[in-house]
């Protein structure tokens, strides 16, 4: 199994062609990457909202959406995300492949032209975005920031990160800050958008059934920049030394409590130990067959969910669970026991091999998805490591029991965070 990738660096932009016959659509992704910074994050969070409202040729949202409908319901999405200590702004455009639409032509050219417009030619008024759009979208982002608190699971994750990584870049909120929204003007946002075009790392991906050479010609004739001012951002990912564990309990009006635990693995995507960490995570809490699910949920009926997830670019691991408030101490004890069991090598050869297969299975499935394939390839760019799919699978297959135990012993609990019902903890 392999992924065909044709790369070309031109016009100070990195192009990645991923031709494959798996899909009925073509997917374009344009990615802007910069270091996470408190000073710019709220602007970067607001830009997707504003840019979706129109372009120079399609100045209103209605006109832009009608053009997308004309392209047979092409889908545009613009969003920001955090990978390690970088922030990535992605423009996705997915358009049906004209092969399945007899009687249509130049759908591809028209789609590329639209993508170019969205990325390069926003609807501009004087030195900013249209005032009405700026004001309105700022208000919408403000409401979204406020309503994060209503999704208790996400809110608990953010609170854990705030406290555990306090003072580190990684704790910066990708969705921006309410109080920073009033700290910049429309013109300043526009200037930042222009700077981003000069300073960010830009990667462009295309996945689907197409001719790579033709696609490259079409894209490089449109997507250009004269120079790139800054050097590539280096991840500021030096791990914190001598980890000690902290505990924080907060209360809210809710019935189910969220118990989240943060750990330091200090193992990054590019490290040799990374495959062993993947296998460790799989056995610890990555699958329904994992220790956490079996012991917290199945054997003790303590939770509806109990899972672990890795942060591959910062060297963190998180356990997330939803429990009854009165079960806090019991659940915490059982979760800690599972990590101890991993450290002591309390797992069978069979479980080890099964987990490897599950991970490989999961990766293969990811590669069947059009966005999944793009994100998989982009992880290598962010993680500063190129690896073929076969090498990756081979790496996972080679992981030994001793390596998993070694990694387990490197995983250090750093923060226990409980979001619980008011008065819930008093039951203990």
């Amino acid at each position, binding site marked *: 199994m392999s992924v065909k990738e044709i790369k070309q660096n031109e016009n100070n932009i990195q192009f990645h062609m991923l031709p*494959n016959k798996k899909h009925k659509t073509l997917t374009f992704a344009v990615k802007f990457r910069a270091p996470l910074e408190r000073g710019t994050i709220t602007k970067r969070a607001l830009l997707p909202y504003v840019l979706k409202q129109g372009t120079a040729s399609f100045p209103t949202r209605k006109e832009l*959406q009608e053009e997308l*409908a004309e392209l047979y319901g092409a889908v545009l999405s613009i969003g920001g995300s955090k990978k390690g200590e970088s922030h990535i702004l992605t423009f996705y455009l997915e358009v049906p492949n004209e092969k399945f639409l007899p009687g249509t032509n130049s759908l591809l050219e028209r789609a590329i032209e639209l993508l170019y417009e969205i990325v390069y030619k926003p609807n501009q008024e004087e030195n900013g975005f249209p005032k009405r759009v700026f004001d309105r979208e700022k208000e919408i982002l403000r409401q979204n920031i406020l309503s994060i608190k209503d999704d208790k699971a996400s809110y608990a994750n953010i609170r854990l990160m705030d406290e555990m990584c306090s003072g580190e870049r990684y704790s910066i909120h990708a969705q921006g800050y309410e109080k920073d929204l009033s700290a910049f003007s429309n013109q300043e946002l526009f200037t930042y958008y222009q700077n981003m075009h000069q300073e960010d790392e830009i990667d462009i991906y295309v996945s689907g059934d197409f001719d790579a050479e033709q696609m490259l010609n079409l894209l490089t004739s449109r997507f250009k920049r004269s120079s790139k001012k800054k050097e590539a951002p280096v991840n500021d990912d030096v791990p914190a030394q001598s980890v000690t564990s902290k505990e924080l309990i907060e209360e809210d009006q809710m019935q189910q409590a969220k118990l989240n635990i943060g750990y330091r693995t200090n193992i990054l995507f590019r490290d040799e130990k990374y495959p062993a960490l993947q296998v460790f995570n799989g056995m610890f809490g990555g699958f329904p067959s994992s220790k956490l699910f079996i012991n917290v949920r199945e054997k003790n009926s303590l939770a509806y969910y109990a899972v672990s997830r890795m942060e591959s670019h910062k060297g963190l691991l998180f356990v997330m669970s939803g429990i009854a408030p009165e079960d806090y101490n019991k659940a915490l004890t059982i979760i800690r026991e599972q990590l101890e069991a991993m450290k002591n090598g309390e797992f069978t050869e069979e479980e080890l091999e099964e987990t490897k297969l599950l991970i490989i299975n999961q990766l293969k499935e990811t590669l069947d998805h059009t966005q999944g394939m793009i994100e998989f390839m982009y992880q290598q760019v962010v993680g500063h490591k190129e690896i073929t799919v076969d090498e990756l699978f081979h790496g996972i297959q080679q992981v030994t029991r001793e390596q998993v135990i070694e990694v387990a012993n490197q995983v250090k609990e750093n923060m226990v965070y409980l979001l619980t019902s008011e008065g819930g903890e008093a039951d203990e």
Partner: protein
Amino acid sequence: MNKQYFDTIDETLYEEKLDNGLQVCLLPKPELAKTYGVFMTNYGSIDQSFVPIGQTEAITVPDGIAHFLEHKLFEKEDRDVFTDFTKQAASPNAFTSFTETAYLFSATSNIEKNVLTLVDFVQDPYFSEQSVEKEKGIIAQEINMYDDQPDWRLFMGTNKALFHNHPVNIDIAGTVDSIYTITKDDLYTCYHTFYHPENMILFVTGNFDAQEMMNLIKENQQKKSFDKLDDIKRQFPEEPDTVKEKNLMINMPVSIPKCAVGIKEPNKQLEGEEYLKRDLFVDMVLDHFFSTGGEFYQKLYDEDLIDNSFFFESNLQTSFGYVSIGSNTNNPEAFSSRVQELLLSTKDHEISEADFERMKKKKMGQLLRAMNSLEFIANQFATLSFKKVNLFDIVPFIQKLTVQDVNVFLNSWIEEERLATCTIQNQTVDK
């Protein structure tokens, strides 16, 4: 085995109804690494009152039993089926909706083994009193988790406002009280009636050979015996076309109020082309007015009544149907009355030929895009088959729709007495 090629999407479907009544559909996609299989029964949370197989009198079972059964089917006397799939490098899962229960897996290896595991575990129930008791704690946690989610409360609240008696107004998982009354005998009764092959479909799509797969499934089914099943008699309470409650308020802590306007679809017991046509019209018309490029969306946006949590969704089934249009909003009253006013204005609205052509293009493109997903193809094909609709006929069907038809639908779609509002607000803010 029937073989049918659909040129609009370049896919070949193999289909056969087995002797025991099971419908088997296979869609090979050799260019993918993955295979997805779903085994679905035409049985969901609303099927609470029915005549059990081999009996003559109707019974009513506790709320949430279909979902409870879904959980319990994974557990066998000596093991959990999750482990079987795990050993075969597959990811299993299941879901229960108002009208279906589905068991599924995805895998990139051991495909035949995994298909057999799927079929065998669903057709071999083991319920014990002890394991039924143990599950109650887990499901109670699940119910509490949903109760903490304002979006879920808004969704169920809208249904509660729309429906007087139809069980679509009850949570799919039931309540903590109702699930505690479930017994193992209840589970067996529901199981034997609704998990009969005649009431089920198996859809497998991905990387395999169709003929070999069909032989394998047939051989497996021939070894099993089932009681004879006549038509399942399901009973639904009398449900008026009008809404139950014009305005339903729910108090819970939210940072910004949430509001949804529900439209109750008249109960027409639609199937086949009639069903498909109405379902497409509801969907396309909603999209036309309320998607981010739509006229009504623009008005709500300009009047500061919505943010980007704005949503609209429709669910049309044979025994019920509803539409929900909602958002986080600082002014729920104004949002509700404006949405209702806009909906009522569709009586006199005429969609132009050009707009309708664009709506058709968009809908066809959306379907093509959705068909990138094996899960979509299999799940949609299965649920539509229960309504006597073939998923792969939809694209040509859309091409035939006319602007006259859509306008006839539009002008009779909305009636004030079939509209209701649900609002979620923080009590403390109001005081």
